[in-house]
């Protein structure tokens, strides 16, 4: 019977909150952001290949075929613009260089003109272009045909191997760590506040009195938490699927197989974070009778959330094995934010992950027990909010309302 009642309460929350404009709008916005981010990055020309823009002027004395040679060599190296200076005087060329309209001018195979300082990488590039143009010219003079020339001077393709893992894998791990941290910080706030809203709504409309005539407070609380966590998981899945789909569709990042290995842990950790925070928000919601009072009781929730987020962010972009990061990994209110980061960065052992998740589960359970007890005493209370002192006494059971 109790299970059935929990299911009914959970389904009602899912239907009511799932249909709400707020939930649908937030889900749509986050999904759009998840899909749009890789797509936009892919579409931006400047960031599509991270190539440096260079502008090379070619004067009259430069060898024939240099334009084509430089263009062929620039692929995957420079975003190249060739400026034809063949009709320009020396003074005009100097002016272009002084005003940085071009980076370098090739005046002859022997002379590269610079504005102020030489770019050694660009020198090497232009020199290679000159050599290629010269070689092509000589080969042409020897009567070699086009196909043969292409074979002789075709680019050599190279692959790379990294002893300590590729920079791509590291970037993806860092990205996943940040995504996990961001979701662990954001989702409990959204769904925690929805839980609080639901509790306060039931108190202010007095429907809780009718509900409690049929079900126990703990059953009501459990149904509410399960329903809202289910909605959060749906939202989370949509966001992650949208993001992964967009990443795969745009070929922006290749997701290494090792990244998929910590997805289950990421989900468990997020679920734990959602559970503990929705329970906490429900408990705090039961202390007030009006939504206007919500801000007063919510403040303490943000202390562990912000602490977890900031330490987590430091761990994402820096050292994930600081003492503070390790300590916060064991605390149930902050571990949902630290776990994904430290796992994604490979800074925590499997045993530690299991223990941390166990502590999170235990913390959630104990908080649920406390919340159910407080809930029982405060749900029929209206008017002024229940003070912190009274909350402590309620948790010790010295007041029977």
């Amino acid at each position, binding site marked *: 019977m109790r299970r059935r009642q929990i299911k009914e309460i959970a389904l009602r929350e899912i239907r009511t909150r799932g249909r709400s404009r707020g939930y649908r709008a937030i889900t749509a916005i986050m999904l759009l952001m998840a899909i749009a981010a890789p797509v936009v990055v892919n579409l931006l020309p400047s960031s599509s290949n991270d190539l440096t823009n260079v502008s090379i002027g070619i004067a009259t004395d430069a060898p024939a075929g240099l334009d084509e040679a430089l263009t062929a060599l620039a692929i995957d190296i420079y975003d190249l613009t060739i400026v034809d200076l063949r009709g320009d005087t020396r003074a005009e060329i100097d002016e272009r260089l002084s005003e940085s309209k071009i980076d370098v001018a090739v005046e002859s195979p022997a002379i590269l003109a610079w504005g102020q300082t030489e770019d050694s990488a660009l020198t090497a590039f232009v020199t290679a272009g000159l050599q290629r143009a010269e070689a092509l010219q000589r080969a042409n003079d020897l009567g070699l045909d086009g196909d043969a020339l292409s074979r002789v001077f075709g680019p050599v393709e190279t692959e790379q191997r990294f002893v300590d893992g590729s920079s791509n894998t590291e970037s993806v791990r860092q990205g996943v760590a940040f995504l996990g941290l961001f979701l662990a910080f954001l989702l409990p706030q959204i769904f925690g506040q929805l839980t609080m809203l639901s509790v306060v709504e039931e108190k202010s409309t007095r429907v809780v009195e*009718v509900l409690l005539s049929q079900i126990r407070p703990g059953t009501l609380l459990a149904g509410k938490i399960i329903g809202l966590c289910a909605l959060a998981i749906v939202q989370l899945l949509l966001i992650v699927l949208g993001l992964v789909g967009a990443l795969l569709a745009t070929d922006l990042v290749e997701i290494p197989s090792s990244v998929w290995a910590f997805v289950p842990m990421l989900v468990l950790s997020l679920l734990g974070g959602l559970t503990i925070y929705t329970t906490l928000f429900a408990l705090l919601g039961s202390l007030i009778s009006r939504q206007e009072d919500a801000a007063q009781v919510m403040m303490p929730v943000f202390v562990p959330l912000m602490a977890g987020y900031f330490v987590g962010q430091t761990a994402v972009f820096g050292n994930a094995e600081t003492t503070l990061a390790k300590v916060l990994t064991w605390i149930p209110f902050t571990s949902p934010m630290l776990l994904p980061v430290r796992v994604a960065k490979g800074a925590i052992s499997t045993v530690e992950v299991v223990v941390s998740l166990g502590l999170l589960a235990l913390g959630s359970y104990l908080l649920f027990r406390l919340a159910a007890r407080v809930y029982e005493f405060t749900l029929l209370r209206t008017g002024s909010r229940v003070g912190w002192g009274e909350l402590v006494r309620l948790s010790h059971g010295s007041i029977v309302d």
Partner: protein
Amino acid sequence: MTAALEVLGLRKAYGEVQALDGVDLRVAKGQMVGFLGSNGAGKTTTMRSIIGLVAVDEGRVTWQGAPISVDDRRNIGYMPQERGLYARMKVKEHIAFFGRLAGLPNNVAEQRAHEWAERVSLDERKDDLVQELSTGNQQRVQLAVALVHEPELLILDEPFAGLDPVAVSMLIGVMTEQVNRGVSVIFSSHQLDLVQDLTEDVTIIANGHTIASGKVSDLRQRSPHRVVSLSWAGDTPAWAPPTAQPVEAPAGQSRFRVSADTEPAAFIAAAAEQGALISVSFEPPGLEDVFIELVSQ
């Protein structure tokens, strides 16, 4: 009559305030009991204690001779004083939801929701949101919610408050049907004339304590007063008998409160000396007067 529900010696304090200080209440199967008391007398706290919403300090609540259990409490239909509904739920959905919470299978809950929406005259509005209904219609939904699971005990806290005469008539009809079905009904109300018309049995509490319980007719008979209503032909004389206390009366009539041991014949004879009497009644006070007498003691 054997009590189906028995409340004995309930005591409950909120800090310094003694909300209940010895409440006794009995209701038999198929009996309707009016639970009366002034504001703050402890009616709502008593009702909440029966339902299990309030933990009492002392006393006991039994159902069919045994301490009331969680399962027994699922057989209670409850309509609180302050109506409690989900504003953004549809009427039929609302009724069915509470039916399922009470343990009805889905199809039965749906069927009952349909039937109850019809019974409380909301069949044409069953797909409207609760917040779109008037206060009176919301109260009808609340009644349907209390009854959807066919409870054996119905507890209605101020069910008539704010209802128009048509809704009152509908509610009386439903309550009577339930009693005929064998349901035990407890309801509180400040509309004592209505209570007197609706039920024979009442329990009256004051300051958290039961001060009277029994048949309305017995309580009236036990009153130390009688009410004499007189009408004379022509103008009503300005008569003020020394042993009687004038009370409010309709136009063209005089009404006096007298001691219960007043000799009716002598009093009427004295009245007849004031003019030609065309109507006389000498009877125990109504429930409202009895109530005021009792709670004023």
